[in-house]
């Protein structure tokens, strides 16, 4: 323990600071969650009693989130997009991890920086650059061949590509960190026992990487789920949940159903984050 915080006054002051900081962190989340249970048409004080209507009611004017078609559809699209982004980015991230940990090639450092780069490009710019390229391509194909490529117009496919473009950096970094800790004598032992390369990969290396791959998938899914900036420019008629919520907040004004969605999402993210932490912890015990 640092000596500067040995004196009781300083130590208690420091604790108070930490407490205030966590109150600051929690305040808006609590506000967003708590009003989901307020029996009122508006997410504000006074408190009019506890209700679950904003989740389950199917009577106008209080339509709960589980009966709100547009919100449910948004949830569904978010889920589809998040799963695709997670699968793709874990696959490419695993390839990248092997590429940068196991191989030496010319320009490796340069390519490594290229791999990190998407993380420091503002999301808005990733969105517009991919939108512009896809439209350019679609227009070109339409002019030359008369075929309309629906895939390259704003929609789920472009949203997935846009999110994938920077989430892959995150998954690559997570999986690379794990692969670096791999003790290659384990693979050598397997080779000495006569195993083939494919078999060693399947039975030794990939199981070792599994916790990191699962953690990377969870992180990718969550980042995709909550992404707004990149998605905003690439979204078509199949709007994911964040876009649906934003539209409603700006255009219609908020009712507590948005709080219900917020509460639901916070619960979901917290659970997934917990799973990812438990898996990561497991990993440090093994190695």
């Amino acid at each position: 323990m640092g000596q500067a915080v040995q004196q009781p006054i300083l130590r208690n002051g420091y604790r108070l600071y930490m407490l205030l900081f966590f109150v600051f962190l929690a305040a808006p989340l609590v506000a967003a969650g708590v009003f989901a249970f307020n029996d009122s048409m508006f997410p504000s004080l006074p408190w009019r009693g506890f209700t679950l209507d904003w989740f389950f009611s199917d009577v106008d004017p209080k339509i709960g989130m589980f009966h709100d078609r547009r919100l449910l559809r948004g949830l569904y699209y978010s889920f589809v997009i998040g799963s695709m982004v997670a699968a793709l980015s874990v696959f490419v991230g695993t390839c990248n991890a092997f590429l940068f940990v196991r191989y030496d090639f010319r320009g490796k450092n340069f390519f490594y920086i290229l791999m990190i780069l998407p993380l420091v490009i503002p999301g808005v710019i990733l969105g517009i650059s991919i939108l512009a390229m896809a439209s350019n391509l679609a227009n070109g194909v339409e002019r030359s061949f008369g075929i309309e490529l629906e895939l390259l117009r704003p929609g789920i496919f472009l949203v997935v590509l846009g999110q994938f473009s920077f989430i892959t950096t995150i998954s690559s970094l997570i999986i690379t960190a794990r692969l670096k800790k791999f003790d290659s004598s384990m693979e050598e032992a397997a080779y000495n026992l006569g195993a083939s390369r494919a078999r060693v990969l399947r039975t030794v290396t990939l199981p070792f990487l599994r916790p990191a791959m699962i953690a990377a998938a969870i992180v990718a899914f969550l980042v995709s789920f909550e992404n707004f900036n990149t998605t905003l420019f690439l979204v078509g008629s199949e709007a994911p949940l964040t876009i649906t919520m934003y539209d409603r907040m700006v255009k219609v004004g908020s009712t507590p159903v948005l709080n219900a969605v917020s509460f639901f999402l916070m619960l979901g993210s917290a659970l997934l984050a917990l799973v990812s932490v438990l898996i990561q912890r497991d990993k440090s015990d093994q190695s």
Partner: protein
Amino acid sequence: MTSDAKKLSLLLLFIPFALWIALLIVLPHIGMFELSLKEKIAPRVYEYSLANYKNFVTEPIYWNTLLRTGGVSLLVTFLALLIGFPVAYYIAKVAGKRSKGALFLLCLIPLWVSDLIRAFGWILLLRETGVISTALQASGLIDGPIEFLYNDATVVMGLVYTVVLFMIVPLVSTLDGMDNEMIEAGYNLGGNGFTVLRRIIIPYAMPGIVAGCIVVFMLSAGSYLTPILLGGKNSSWFTEQIYDQFITRYNWESGAAFGFVLLIFTSFVVWLGLKLSGQTLSSTVAKS
């Protein structure tokens, strides 16, 4: 493994990487740059020129917005460092082994909540009919409702809130690796708390500080939701201008130019930060 097989597997692993970087990062940015150099002279007729950039330079509202975005983001970065450093230090060095993990987790939970929900929470707290205004009235401290939204201080606060975690995480991981004996030695050699902080802790934590500052600055300058929702329609944030050109006015050429200007501007600030602190991108951001 034979060298041919090695080469083949290298090639196979390189393909996904190359496709990803080339098709989704490099080509779109080249395309965006090309688009930004086009000027519409008649319907469906374009000519290469610098008109979009000229437009940006001659229209004070545009570059004022950019400078404002940059300035506010620097302020946000500084405040996030100021607020986040003691928190990171507490987690890494002061807290006991048990509470350490719990505190770190507590820090991470808001990280997984969407920007939108956090901004929504702040709106519920701060608006005229919000929790804080109502509570202050009920306690008799103020007479009428107060609107805390739609001013610069709230935007700065909201941005600090959104980004401070990205400052804390790299700081905790660098400070964690620091030997407590280094700090003890500083005190034993007669340094006071401030000297130890300035001469030992901060130099050691520099990679973490730089990594945090870079990520925080980029996130702040590139953010869209927080300035709009907490600052209102007149928050004059640069990403808002880009959105306006692209979606509202459907002027993609000018929007692309603005996007490029933002990219150059933020890259320049990041480059300057790395140069001034003597760090590199892979020694900082990649580690967090």
